[in-house]
């Protein structure tokens, strides 16, 4: 996060330069964010409110909403626990292989989502390492809900940890050391001292993680199998509806993701503001 105390004193540009820069920035925002967002909603409501709600009520759409919620419900808490633990270990302790661990956490950011999906095809596919054994024992992972959740966990893996590491590093370990000296146990230190300090950071990470978990297309598309009413998440359902010339319904379902984005942005701004206050 930028240090905003800098921007205060250093205002040497003439007023018109500032105005032009602000206008350009706002125009850019309007062109690339507001207009598309408005387009989604206007297309979704193109055929009226009744069609809009009918599209969301449709069995396959409901199933995709359910699957998306379930996926986020499993992936986000797991990544939350992992993220907090990893950030805690990295920020408060030094151990060999620390920078390697940081690199590993960043891996899903640098790998294309399609590749992230293919990894699971290679591991769990019928022609892959574990596929034949799993099939023999009747365990379904690929082209089923577990595969979708696994792929989602993979792509959303860094969000919480990445958010917390700089925050915890900046806070240092003085307070924890003081707590330990005063006789607190490890867990007490974490919940009474560390956690209150990183609360807003955690929420911020969870919001980002959740947005990506619900919106992921590429990796999930590879492992989904696209079975209607079973393995399509909201983004996949949008693509299907669009390809069936069902534009109003496609945008109606897409508007759910757009709404999620708007809510995410609002909560994010609130949290950022809180973070600055903290």
């Amino acid at each position, binding site marked *: 996060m930028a240090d905003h105390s800098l921007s205060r004193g250093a205002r040497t540009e003439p007023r018109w330069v500032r105005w032009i820069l602000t206008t350009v920035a706002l125009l850019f925002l309007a062109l690339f964010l507001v207009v598309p967002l408005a387009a989604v909603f206007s297309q979704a409501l193109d055929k009226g409110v009744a069609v809009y709600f009918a599209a969301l009520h449709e069995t396959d759409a409901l199933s995709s909403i359910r699957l998306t919620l379930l996926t986020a419900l499993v992936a986000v808490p797991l990544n939350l626990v992992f993220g907090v633990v990893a950030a805690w270990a990295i920020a408060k302790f030094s151990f060999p292989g620390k920078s390697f661990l940081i690199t590993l956490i960043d891996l899903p950011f640098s790998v294309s989502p399609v590749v992230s999906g293919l990894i699971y095809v290679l591991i769990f596919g019928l022609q*892959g390492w574990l596929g034949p054994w799993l099939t023999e024992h009747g365990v379904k992972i*690929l082209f089923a809900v577990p595969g979708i959740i696994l792929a989602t966990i993979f792509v959303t893996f860094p969000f919480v940890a990445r958010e917390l590491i700089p925050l915890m590093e900046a806070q240092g370990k003085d307070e924890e050391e003081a707590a330990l000296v005063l006789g607190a146990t490890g867990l007490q230190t974490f919940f009474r001292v560390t956690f209150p300090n990183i609360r807003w950071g955690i929420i911020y990470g969870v919001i980002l993680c959740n947005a990506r978990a619900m919106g992921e297309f590429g990796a999930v598309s590879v492992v989904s199998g696209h*079975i209607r*009413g079973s393995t399509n998440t909201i983004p996949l359902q949008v693509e299907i509806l*669009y*390809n*069936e010339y069902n534009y109003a319904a496609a945008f109606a379902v897409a508007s759910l993701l757009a709404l999620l984005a708007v809510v995410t942005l609002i909560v994010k701004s609130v949290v950022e503001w809180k973070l600055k206050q903290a």
Partner: protein
Amino acid sequence: MIVRIISTVALLLALAVPALAVDVTLLNVSYDPTRELYADLNSAFTAQVKKKGTNVTIKQSHGGSGKQARSVIDGLEADVVTLALAYDIDAIAEKGLIKADWQKRLPHNSSPYTSTIVFLVRKGNPKKIKDWNDLVKPGIAVITPNPKTSGGARWNYLAAWGYALRQPGGTEAKAKEFVKLLYKNVPVLDSGARGSTNTFVQRGQGDVLLAWENEAYLAINELGPDKYDIVTPPVSILAEPPVAVVDKVVDRRGTRALAEEYLKFLYSEEGQRIAAKHYYRPIDKKIPIKLSKLKLFTIDELFGGWTKAQKTHFADGGQFDQIYGAGK
């Protein structure tokens, strides 16, 4: 409005509780343009077996034919596959999931319906496209998907090749030259048939779309007869999209009897009528169809079957790679 929102929420909650029914489910893994066809066929079949006391739910998965075959090979548990061309089912059979003799198990090379490749043009046919040789004229933009990934695109390609080959004095070399000229007129290669249709109709690109006959009629019905015309060329290719039971899957799941009944249903009078309704050409000649007559050649006649055609034309370094690489 508020009532609607509340009922949406209530429904969501109700659906969050998993269903208790223990019906038999079949998974049909199919290619792109059959979505509407199988939606109809499945409800007819479900109603039929319900009379006999079986509750069956048929689930569908659609996508590019080659990609779908790949998913089945990787473990997508399809009880039946209904793909765009025999080669894709052969690829599954090669991995041992389907017995090698699959194409002989059902009548007509296991193809319950056939189709062909026609032209979709803008209303009034402003570029006067009537036959295949109009497609290679300068200034005509042709939309067709990528034959490397799309089954329909391979039929398009072979139809053009076959047309040139059957012209008086036609040779393989002349056919190649013809197809090369055609692909020079292709501004964009989408990965699947639906993608190409969307490029043509939604994004307004191109003068002519090479399309499955059923896909062309569907586009007209869905998007307005006032915008497009269908041009049926005098000659085209007989496309036989085949179906097969995936032996390994049905034997493991114990669904063989039902899966076989399902495929036989495609050949029944009702199944054939539904195919005709969706602008496929039924093999039962008693069913009336609304489609134009044309001369059809087969892949066996001109290309020696799919395995050979695939190897010569679409394998890496094959004719298509030479044509498209050189055409750029």
